[in-house]
């Protein structure tokens, strides 16, 4: 469903932040995206959720060559992608309910059609009592859960999450991870960018590991070994 071939990306005249990135995600797969800060994770995610186009290389998403897909056809592709942004990107003047319902509203559904689903999902992420609250009054963890609920409410084919458990406690982190796994079982392809090794240790999933803009694909076991070595090497 998703294929990158020799993808390179540079911003303006700067150095390449992604170099010859090649990988493939199959329908229903579960991957982690790992790498140090500045390794290019956010840039890669931006390409994945169609916030930019690569400088070179080939990207195929849902069978569409992104380089030749007309701009008018991009919204339909984007609606099949759910994104949890690291900085949440919630709309401050909307309530939690309205923020979560946004993808459904954009897709043309009426409030009557989505009310029940949105309320159920907010209850599931533990925000039943915060449905009418606006983001400025929510804690970091609550905002994160609203952002996650918004990303999955439309049951996307591809879920991209940037540090989705960074602001919640361990218990809620695991609960959210179960949510991603459940979604994955229903057929959604999941890619989670994270630094959280306790999270990656919980799931036997391959890693897309970025190092200075270059991507390596590691199996779950290889990723664990790499993490252990990195821990030992750390001062």
């Amino acid at each position, binding site marked *: 469903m998703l294929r990158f071939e020799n993808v390179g990306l540079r911003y303006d005249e700067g150095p390449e932040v992604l170099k010859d990135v090649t990988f493939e995600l199959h329908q229903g797969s579960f991957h982690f995206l790992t790498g140090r800060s500045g390794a290019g994770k956010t840039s890669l995610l931006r390409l994945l959720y169609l916030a930019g*186009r690569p400088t070179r290389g080939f990207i195929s998403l849902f069978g569409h060559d992104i380089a030749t897909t007309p701009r008018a056809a991009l919204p339909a592709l984007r609606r099949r992608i759910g994104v949890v942004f690291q900085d949440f990107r919630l*709309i401050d003047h*909307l309530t939690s309910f*309205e923020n979560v319902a946004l993808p459904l509203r*954009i897709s043309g559904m*009426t409030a009557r059609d989505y009310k029940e689903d949105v309320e159920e999902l907010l209850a599931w992420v533990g925000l039943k009592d915060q449905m009418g609250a606006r983001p400025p009054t929510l804690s970091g963890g609550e905002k994160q859960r609203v952002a996650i609920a918004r990303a999955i409410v439309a049951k996307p084919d591809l879920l991209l999450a940037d540090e989705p458990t960074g602001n919640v406690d361990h218990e809620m982190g695991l609960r959210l991870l179960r949510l991603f796994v459940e979604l994955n079982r229903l057929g959604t392809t999941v890619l989670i960018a994270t630094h959280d090794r306790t999270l990656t240790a919980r799931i036997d999933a391959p890693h897309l590991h970025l190092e200075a803009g270059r991507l390596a694909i590691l199996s779950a076991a290889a990723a664990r070994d790499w993490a252990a070595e990195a821990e030992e090497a750390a001062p």
Partner: protein
Amino acid sequence: MSQAQAVAEAAREALSEALKARKEKRPPLIALGWASSGLLFSIVAVMSFFASLAAGGTLTIDRVFASWSIGLTQAVTVQLVPTKEMAASEQVERALVVLEATPGVREVKPIGREEASALLEPWLGEGNLPADLALPQLVDVRVDTAHPPDLAILADRLKNAVPGAVLDTHLRWKGQLLTFWSWVRLLEALALGLIGVATVATIVFATRAVLETNRELVDLLHLMGAHDAFIAGEFQRHFSIIGSLGGLAGALAALAALWGLAIASRGNDYFAPALASDSKLFLLAVLVPVAVCGVTLLTARVTALTILRRTI
């Protein structure tokens, strides 16, 4: 699709989206602060006020011109300049014979010295007309506007029959009035056009500013799969509300001003006809806000779409 069809389609989409949002009581996605909303409202209201005033002024000028024009078309004047060849009373008698025998002449009325003196009073002052000053005799002639006489032939017949007779058809005065009226109409149209351009420019700047302020939100909506039309529709919701309220406020203020003018100039119907009784003015109070709202809505939509299409 032609430009007109595209505009009609955009207006239909906008209306449909606005009605849907209103029906569901959905909160606006684009937040325009109270300060920006208030400023935009004031600008639109001022534009609407001037547009209504210009349109109301056109209606007034039309009315005044029509009443003057009818008066001038219905009446001609025969001047009988005193001569040695014929006595004044005989001049009048002969002129009346010629006039009454002319088809198309409806009414003939000689103007006596007292009445002629009254006509000169505004220029000479009361009682300043010397009693021995020889004044031309005047005959007021009312013509049938449906079947008017040939004024050139009438003028010749009068000239031949009565020494010193001159037929004043007010042609020169009418020509000057028509020229003046044309210029006023042109200036009014120019004023309306400039107000329209200023309104469009204001809305373009305001839309750009709101888009720039909400850049992150617009990007987010795009990333969630929103079409440009959906985002533009959110802008329209704001601008159409501000446009209609501002338009209405401006038009009502202009109507009140015109009404005040009508009341202040009561008793001077010749220069300021009774404006308040003109139903067209009330129509203006409806049409101008609708037009202002339409211009606001379409300008915001077209500007937003133009900018959005440049994004990825």
